[in-house]
């Protein structure tokens, strides 16, 4: 009844289920970053204690759910700033920051995403790399730096 191989298979099956649960938490952050979201809300949704979620998430993805959420918010804020042909250098320059109209609107949007994360829009500009990669995986890669440590290689 208790063959060691069965025990190992069962433990591995549980581990995969736990990882899939963490994936759903991470996907929820990607989906709902613009809503008032915190680790307690994420933990409630996943049906596990907040401390446990934070530890397991960090083990699986290399940084806490809060750092991941912050990175996602800053990445979206940066995307808003960069949209419409506004380059990073331009957006960072005093001229870019003080130019009226569309940029001001974008800056307001940025504040909406970054203030819950405690990062002012000016800081977003400082953290965006000079050259923003132009592919889906690459964006995820550079934005990791914004809220925590950068992983070893790009992912989707």
């Amino acid at each position, binding site marked *: 009844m208790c063959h060691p191989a069965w025990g190992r298979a069962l433990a591995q099956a549980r581990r*995969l289920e736990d990882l899939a649960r963490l994936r759903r938490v991470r996907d929820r952050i990607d989906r709902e970053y613009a809503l008032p979201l915190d680790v307690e809300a994420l933990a409630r949704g996943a049906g596990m204690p907040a401390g446990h979620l934070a530890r397991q998430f960090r083990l699986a993805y290399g940084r806490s759910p809060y750092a991941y959420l912050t990175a996602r918010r800053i990445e979206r804020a940066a995307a808003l700033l960069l949209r419409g042909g506004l380059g990073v250098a331009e957006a960072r320059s005093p001229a870019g920051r003080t130019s009226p109209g569309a940029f001001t609107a974008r800056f307001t949007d940025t504040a909406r995403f970054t203030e819950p994360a405690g990062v002012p829009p000016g800081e977003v500009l400082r953290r965006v790399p000079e050259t923003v990669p132009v592919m889906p995986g690459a964006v995820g890669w550079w934005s990791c730096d914004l809220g925590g440590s950068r992983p070893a290689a790009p992912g989707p």
Partner: protein
Amino acid sequence: MACMDITIHTTFLPHDDPDASLAFYRDVLGFEVRSDVGQGRMRWISVGPAGRSGTSILLAPPATDPGITEDERRTIAEMMAKGTYGWILLATPDLDGTFEKVQAKGAEVVQEPVEQPYGVRDCAFRDPAGNLIRIQELR
């Protein structure tokens, strides 16, 4: 240089539950099934957009190469579960309509349609095996 004539014929995505993956690609994304061989977890299912047989996705069991070690096999299974293994980029002229239909059929949404800084508008879903399915707008 001589003119080459090479097309992209088939790309691969792993499954861990062939029936669930088949249901997602056929019933949720509306792809046609081009072949379905094997049994149990060892199923190889070829799917693709209806009427465009030139390009297919092969839904296949992961890590079947006998040269893959037990440790590597476990790592691949864990990466699939945590959603960091397979991904693909699809495209449609009607992003909003596609997003609504796919969402209405119960797919796990990862990202609603949004303008990306790299100049495209896209959305993202998760397939039943944990693969990331990005769909970008053709324009």
